């Protein structure tokens, strides 16, 4: 492995990404909504909404498994709403952060380089196909995890602070969230990267790669819907399983990506 060349490629991609509005805007806005807006709104929900769906909430909780009901047992009605939103409902949304960061940067590093026509000069350099892919994967992965973990810390602070009037105690992060942040978030980032690499080999612009690659959020949307419908309950064990599944899928996609990203074939496809 030519680590020096890989580091140079990663550093260059990162420098380029930092100067691109199309990439930086979603990278800043989505995590901000996630770590600031959502917990603030949720924390004040009991105060000014006066629980419009209180009966729905009760019904929803009753559908949940025993273990979940036990988790909520110590809390009163208002506290339950806060915990339900901040701990459970927003958990899949949190995963959007690493997924989005990873796939936007990867779309720029792979398809964007192709679109700007600088890829050919890079292919003529003394790097192997594997080194090129790994360098570009690292460019997406490291920032995705850094942003996701920072978001986790900020979310924890904001959630506890904003919900203090209702909760009166530090209730976050729960064990499930530790698993979510440490295991699942990086897995989701890797999954988004793998999907974007595969898509990027076939499309010719950043926009296409970003849009088609955006389909990777579908599993997360399914989690949100499943939870709201009471079908899925994100227990610590289930979250750990989801994490493992994302890592396995990521490994498969990245493996395919490494096989697809071959200089000869990229140039032959034109």
């Amino acid at each position, binding site marked *: 492995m030519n680590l020096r060349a890989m580091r140079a490629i990663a550093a260059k991609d990162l420098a380029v990404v930092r100067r691109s509005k199309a990439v930086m805007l979603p990278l800043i806005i989505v995590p901000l909504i996630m770590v600031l807006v959502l917990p603030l709104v949720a924390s004040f929900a009991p105060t000014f909404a006066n629980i419009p769906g209180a009966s729905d909430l009760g019904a929803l909780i009753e559908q949940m498994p025993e273990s979940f009901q036990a988790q909520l047992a110590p809390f009163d009605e208002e506290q339950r709403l806060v915990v339900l939103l901040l701990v459970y409902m927003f958990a899949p949304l949190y995963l959007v952060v690493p997924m989005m960061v990873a796939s936007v940067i990867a779309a720029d590093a792979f398809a964007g380089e192709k679109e700007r026509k600088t890829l050919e000069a*890079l292919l003529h350099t003394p790097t192997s196909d594997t080194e090129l892919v790994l360098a570009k994967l690292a460019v997406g992965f490291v920032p995705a995890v850094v942003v996701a973990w920072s978001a986790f810390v900020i979310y924890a602070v904001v959630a506890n602070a904003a919900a203090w009037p209702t909760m009166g105690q530090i209730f976050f992060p729960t064990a499930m969230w530790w698993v979510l942040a440490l295991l699942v978030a990086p897995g989701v980032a890797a999954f988004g990267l793998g999907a974007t690499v595969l898509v990027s080999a076939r499309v010719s612009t950043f926009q296409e790669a970003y849009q088609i690659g955006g389909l990777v959020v579908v599993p997360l949307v399914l989690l949100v819907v499943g939870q709201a419908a009471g079908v899925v309950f994100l227990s610590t064990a289930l979250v750990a399983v989801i994490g493992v599944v994302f890592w396995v899928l990521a490994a498969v996609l990245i493996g395919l990506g490494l096989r697809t990203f071959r200089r000869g074939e990229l140039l032959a496809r034109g």
Partner: protein
Amino acid sequence: MSDTVARAPSSPVPAKRAPPAVIETHALGRRFGETVAVADLELRVERGEIVGMLGHNGAGKTTTVRLLNGVLGASSGGARVLGLDPWRDGVALRRRTGVATETPAVDDRLTGRQGLTYFAHIYGVPAASVARRVDEVLHIFDLADAADARVGGYSRGMKQRLSLARTLVHEPELLFLDEPTAGLDPVAARALDERVLSLRASGATVLLCTHNLVQAQALCDRVVVLEHGRMVAAGTPSELAAGLGAATRVTLELTAPAGLDVAALLRDVAGVHGVEDATAAEGGDAPPPDDPSAVRDRRLRLQVDDRAAIAAAVARLVNAGAGVYAVEREAADLEDVYFALHERNGAAA
């Protein structure tokens, strides 16, 4: 003066092996579906040569460069470049080659210096000398003032110079230049020519793909001409001209009576073709044509196969009473060769 060098007697010991060629291909070919991009290419380039590769758009020049640098697989045949198999040892090969691609190399969002530094690291320029090397190539290509500005703001020619600068940052042994003069002003083009010549002097080998026939003629030791992926000619520019019978053009200035049809006089001289009377084109002070004995300045253009034909033509004119006072000879240049080849192959196709 020793015109006759003693020939070495054919020795019983095996002849010393010729030094390996820098580029050597055997029946190299590449197709894309039905399209034949390169076919049956037999190319040999020796160390220190500047070889021009000419051909129309789509002739297969860029594809050849991609094949030789191991970034595109061959459909048939094989090649050795710097003694390596381009496809098996691509990484080792590419460490020693530099390619100025037709496409930009440095992202618009980087500065020129950042782009060059990036390539210096990828190509393994010793870390301690990266900054110095980058400064050197910035200077060579007159980009020092713009070094810290974003490439997005560069003019087309500046981008092209940056692209050339980065192909030299690691001092490659073999340089592929794919249309390097595109977008360059005459001063920059001249500087590039000088740089290429000095690279050759330092032992580098250059494969120059170009549409710029004047540049090819001036720089190249040999040229190969591709057409539809096939090599249709190879040799020094003058060999090509001779081989094609691309004739030498001659202009004669003479005085002759207005009534004498000087052009007709030359039509049956052996080795002379395409005689045309160019007097009319330039004549402004010609006397009235109603006096056939008045002596007029005349100008003739013709093509000759060899020197003897020029002498024969002049003798014929003098014998007929004309006075020849200027003979201008103009050797066929690469442009004539190129168009002659195109006509010949176009007619065949």
